[in-house]
């Protein structure tokens, strides 16, 4: 395949960025999208041009490092991570536009690399169950109904890639937060901190500069792990309950 790539280049956080155009030939449909960028980078390096910086690590769709806006879609045209997107999803002669995640709360570091540390700071505000090491009761002492465990698992699969934020016109991280709140809220272990968790996480979310949720649903459509939209309803419900409880 022969491709025209339009890629966002930005030397660092404080410099202005711009789109640049590259031609790439002999792309195999079996390559992953990131392998295609590897090939481009080898060519740039040979020519003495700075290779394109992008985040990636496991290349198995699970670590959540990678994330590109491809032709305006977070992670591109398929419901998957960028590393698991393959070039067979594109056609010969196509022009592909590649940009970093777009969100105020995810400032660009270089080229296609953004800073997502705001997600860690949200988790720091209650995205956990407080249990010190060694003080846990016997695992079978608290049975969890199978369906609850399944539901908790399904939403716990969030990889924190940030596609939900990038896809949202408001730049909201409600799907990310809703997934964690639902995961921990489904389990008996998560109940004691349920109210404080949601209140503190939402406060941090707003403090970081993420936008509000207006139920557009672009987040869930872009989510590579298919986290359902109803985790946001759960988030709102938990928040109302917490406020009613006086938090």
């Amino acid at each position, binding site marked *: 395949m022969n491709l025209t790539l339009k890629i966002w280049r930005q030397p660092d956080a404080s410099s202005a960025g711009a789109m640049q155009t590259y031609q790439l030939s002999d792309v195999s449909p079996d390559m992953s999208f990131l392998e295609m960028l590897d090939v481009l980078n080898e060519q740039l390096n040979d020519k003495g041009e700075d290779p394109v910086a992008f985040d990636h690590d496991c290349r198995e769709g699970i670590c959540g490092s990678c994330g590109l806006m491809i032709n305006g879609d977070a992670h591109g045209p398929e419901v998957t991570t960028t590393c698991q997107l393959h070039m067979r999803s594109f056609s010969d002669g196509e022009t592909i536009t590649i940009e970093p995640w777009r969100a105020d709360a995810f400032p660009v570091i270089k080229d296609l690399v953004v800073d997502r540390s705001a*997600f860690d700071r949200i988790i720091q505000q209650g995205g956990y169950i407080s249990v010190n*090491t060694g003080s846990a009761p016997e695992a079978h002492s608290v049975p969890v109904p199978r369906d609850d465990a399944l539901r908790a698992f399904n939403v*716990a699969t969030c990889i924190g890639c940030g596609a939900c934020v990038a896809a949202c016109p408001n730049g909201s991280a409600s799907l990310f937060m809703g997934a964690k709140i639902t995961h921990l809220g489904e389990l008996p272990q998560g109940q004691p901190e349920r109210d404080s968790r949601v209140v503190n996480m939402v406060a941090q979310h707003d403090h970081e500069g993420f936008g509000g949720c207006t139920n557009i649903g672009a987040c869930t459509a872009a989510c590579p792990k298919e986290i359902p939209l109803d985790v946001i309803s759960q988030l709102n419900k938990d928040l109302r309950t917490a406020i009613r409880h006086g938090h």
Partner: protein
Amino acid sequence: MPDTVSAAEASASGFLDGDYDDAAGYYTPGTPLVDTKAPEGPIAERWQNRKFEARLVNPSNRRKLSIIIVGTGLAGASAAATLGEAGYNVKSFCYQDSPRRAHSIAAQGGINAAKNYKEDGDSVHRLFYDTVKGGDYRSRESNVYRLAEVSTNIIDQCVAQGVPFAREYGGLLDNRSFGGVQVSRTFYARGQTGQQLLIGAYQALERQVSAGTVTTYTRHEMMELITVDGKARGIIARDMVTGAVETHLADVVVLASGGYGNVFYLSTNAMGCNVTAAWRAHRKGAYMANPCYTQIHPTCIPVSGSHQSKLTLMSESLRNDGRIWVPKNQADCDKDPRDIPEEDRDYYLERIYPSFGNLVPRDIASRAAKNVCDEGRGVGPEVDGVRRGVYLDFSAAIERLGKKGITEKYDNLFDMYERITGENPFEVPMRIYPAVHYVMGGLWVDYDLQSTIPGLFVTGEANFSDHGANRLGASALMQGLADGYFVLPHTIRDYLADGPFEEITEDHPAVVEARESVKGRIDHFLSVNGTRSVDSYHRELGNIMWEYCGMERTETGLKKAIDLIRSLKDDFYRNVKVLGSAETLNQSLEKAGRVADFFELGELMCIDALNRRESCGGHFRGESQTEDGEALRHDDEYAYVAAWEWAGEDSIPVLHKEDLVYTAIEMKQRSYK
């Protein structure tokens, strides 16, 4: 020596009378390593005794003591969380943008624990026994027993954290069995167990960040270890965003920096996994043990072409329901597998190993796959003239459990396979082939997980101690969490009880020297301005390692590999092309430093493999096999840990041997037939 093997074995293995040392000239013999600090007494009481004897640190003194932890995977994040809770000052470093992305997250299958919830005969002793046997009697007895012992606490801890393990309808935890064992002791969260365990540890870590006991340094790479008066006292790290070379000092340093499988270039490791933290410590005096012990995982997606950047593992749990076969006749290899009748299929694992069948340990499954492909009965696309793939067939399981049952059990694995290969495994059998997955070698540690440098502790995959020559499925996650949650926090306090430690400042000569050496390396890579990219060197090194130090090794091959590595390394230092500057995010520069360390490690791996003229676990020496081609161990000669000491830039390494002594378990030749 030769009189310890039978005549038949000797002739099969090509042994000749007289002394032989394949690695003579490649190393200097050193003094034996005698003190492993393993406690005496009955094995079941050793850990309890050690915990009791380890000195305590008063809570008010803990906040005056500082700990650096490099790596935030299962071993690093769990250690940081636990030591933070205890009240120490912890600095946690990772090269990723968030601790949550450490490669433990990609582990799929599960985690073992001797809970005996199935009442199928499991016990701490049986988990211990299976693990030592699975490691081909090349792991340390005391360490493995402790691992089995604390395994039950791990499950309790993770459940309390909200890790959503699979459950049965009654609300209790479900288990499954895994390769190499005959009991159901593996706890799992569909095909994403590593992710769920890591998120649990990550959340515990972030809780401590909020509590102020842990400070995280993300996008930071450890570039050098600082030692003062022979003790580890800090690290030099590079801020990968600004390029700043930073000095971080502490009373003790913990390396939880994972494995070095990426020396092979193609592996199931994350792209950023590297050996630098461990290798820099090795150059400062930490011994590197059994570096040639590499686990080749049997169930990975085969290579599709030369562009490939990494390999993807399919959980070994698939072998519970999938049946492995190749066509009996070479002529059938390019046919649609669905058109090959039952009688023309060779279910070779079930045929050769009837009692374990498709659940034989990883090394056996891997080598058997390689053998049938080398015979010319492999399937899938031809790469370099050979079809390197075997079928993993779920048709019987789909009939038995239904598509829904399979999806519930294996979740994303079927989707993942289809996404990568473009083939639907519900319709056509999956194709699998072995790939480099995990390394059992690593920095040498004593029973306390302390390296040969006082004050440098090493946990998880970065150390060598628990797995021996091979690793049973679902035991890596167990070791990472055991070390981080339950072992290190006890042993490190004994070391910290010596505090307060002498204060070190940034202008201490040892600190200045470490910082200058890092800057010198960076300047070198940026100034070469040669013609070849870092990646091209890494690929070439990887090919050499896979070809000569991979699934099967021989004396001739290993010697050739060492020559090839030495000349490639020489060329790398003279001809590598790294663009950009040091004061910015520079991914080529990051890779250059890592590949430089892989060259030195790769050479040591070959020397270690050369020294070990026996086949055990994942390490198969062509010169040491039985008449029917099975791995042949030589316990009388090689029941030792090979601990290598760095002797300097222009010197050959020094080999120290630690004898492996088994008191609670009898050494046996493995047989899975």
